[in-house]
């Protein structure tokens, strides 16, 4: 049995480890197109901040991990997949035959249609190569413009501030992290950044970037312009599915999979940022490009590939982020569900906010600013659909008692 995994990110590596666990004799090959040992993109902000070296981003810290587990890691780009002949053509011209194939090719940073994005000094922040390029131009006092204050932009923001650059953040939507948090939280986050000396321009677009005498000149929709030595583009990511064109494998936003993470082609599975799998909150199939989902997918796909039929009942969308020390998180249906109820606790001065969304007496979504203790319980409550009964009424007026409500409900303790 030869298991081939396209993609050396978390979904691919976790799948390889699980395949080894469940199939001691199989041949396992990971094929990745970057030069580094398998690493975590999530760790890049900490590399930029100088907290860790490149080795600190590696997905497996034991140097002999892949060799010791009989996992062959090839560094080459996949060209095309031929599901009929169960074969992959690599860009070096060679072919690899598979018995079972996992598509874990991840996502790539989007380059929006803005003039000047190909100039030197304009970089995404997604790959290790991007990180190295950013480090070249982000020294203390350098003018840096960050395009995009979504989840990734807001994480990089902290790293750039730690490097001591003069930072301006430009976000086209009306608030920071618009796809992770509501207006209250987004506004709180913006105020926090401005208090820390970072300019945040929301509702502003970058119209074009041009070379100037001193570096780059960034033209804004407001008619103003900003000088920059470096422009970091964090405008979102899209699944890497282009190489599947002509393969017959069904794609949409990502690779379409069923409730067992199987694609439309026999013996081909998909996991992680490239997979369009079930979202637990909506019941729909969508791409959830986040680390915990990649980890869940990788494990479940591997079990199915190894012959242990394991359903994927759906993943929970969730994010956590620190922006210059302010921790924010959101879970599931944080914008609420139809016919549901909402509870909010907000302390503007202390930068604390908690919003809970209920479906009946079950938690359906949550978001938090400045509150971290036992926050994982939000996930537990949402995915177990635990009925909170009278504790829900308590939470409607005191949402901060979430952990207490969970422990009490699990122990059969009624509220007083």
């Amino acid at each position: 049995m030869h298991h081939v995994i396209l993609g050396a990110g978390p979904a691919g590596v976790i799948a390889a480890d699980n395949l080894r666990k469940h199939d001691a004799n199989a041949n396992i090959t990971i094929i990745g197109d970057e030069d580094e040992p398998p690493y975590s993109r999530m760790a890049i902000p900490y590399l930029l901040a100088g907290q860790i070296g490149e080795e600190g981003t590696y997905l497996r810290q034991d140097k002999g991990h892949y060799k010791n587990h009989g996992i062959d890691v090839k560094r080459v780009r996949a060209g095309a997949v031929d599901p009929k002949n169960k074969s992959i053509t690599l860009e070096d011209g060679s072919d690899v035959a598979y018995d079972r194939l996992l598509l874990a090719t991840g996502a790539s940073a989007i380059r929006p249609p803005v003039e000047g994005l190909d100039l030197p000094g304009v970089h995404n922040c997604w790959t290790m190569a991007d990180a190295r390029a950013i480090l070249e131009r982000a020294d203390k006092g350098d003018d840096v413009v960050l395009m995009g204050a979504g989840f990734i932009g807001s994480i990089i923001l902290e790293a750039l501030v730690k490097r001591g650059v003069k930072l301006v953040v430009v976000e086209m939507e009306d608030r920071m992290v618009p796809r992770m948090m509501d207006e209250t939280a987004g506004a709180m986050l913006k105020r926090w950044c401005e208090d820390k000396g970072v300019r945040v321009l929301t509702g502003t677009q970058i119209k074009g970037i041009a070379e100037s005498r001193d570096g780059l000149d960034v033209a804004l929709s407001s008619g103003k312009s900003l000088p920059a030595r470096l422009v970091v583009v964090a405008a979102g990511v899209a699944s890497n599915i282009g190489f599947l064109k002509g393969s017959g494998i069904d794609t949409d936003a990502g690779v379409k999979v069923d409730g067992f993470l199987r694609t439309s082609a026999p013996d081909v599975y998909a996991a992680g940022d490239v997979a369009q799998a079930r979202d637990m909150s909506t019941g729909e199939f969508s791409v959830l490009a986040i680390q915990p989902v990649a980890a869940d997918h990788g494990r479940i796909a591997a079990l199915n590939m190894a012959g242990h039929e394991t359903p994927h009942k759906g993943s929970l969308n969730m994010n956590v982020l620190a922006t210059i020390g302010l921790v924010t998180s959101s879970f599931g249906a944080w914008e609420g569900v139809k016919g549901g109820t909402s509870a909010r606790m907000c302390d503007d001065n202390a930068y604390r906010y908690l919003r809970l969304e209920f479906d009946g007496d079950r938690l359906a979504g949550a978001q938090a600013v400045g509150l971290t203790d036992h926050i994982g319980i939000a996930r537990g409550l949402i995915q177990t659909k635990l009925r909170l009964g009278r504790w829900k009424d308590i939470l409607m007026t005191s949402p901060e008692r979430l952990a207490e409500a969970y422990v009490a409900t699990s122990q059969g303790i009624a509220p007083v």
Partner: protein
Amino acid sequence: MQMALVIDPGKCTGCKQCELACSYVKEGEFNPAKSRIRVFDFHQDARFVPYTCTQCDDAWCQKACPVDAITTNEWGVKEVHDDLCVGCKVCTIACPFGTINFNASTGKVMKCDECGGDPACVKACPTEAIVYMDVEQAGFDKMRAWAAKTDAAAGTATAH
């Protein structure tokens, strides 16, 4: 033999000696906010529930860690390696029990590691509400059942 913390909320009086012992041994200060065990206090009911990590077999925190900073030691305990932890906090939202938490003073996450086989909370507990014992014995199954319920609901349960 696999040792584990076994908690009997019925015996807890809410004295919170465990929280003080834990924060002192692990963080060097008497500060319940930095304890890795927390006593939930339902005082109007006179009920107290000590609450900490159950060291899941297939641990959510460990699976979610992007940099391999959480490992399993020979006793099955999940340990955070501070030198590898980058403080990304993904484990804190991945753990459905909320028992791995961010420590703003260190910029790392912290969780119960059973003090390397000699748990401070157990020694501090005056009523044996927290004991350290062989997991084959009664009491542990209840905790496992609790963990399994959360696993099953997520649709990712595997045989232990």
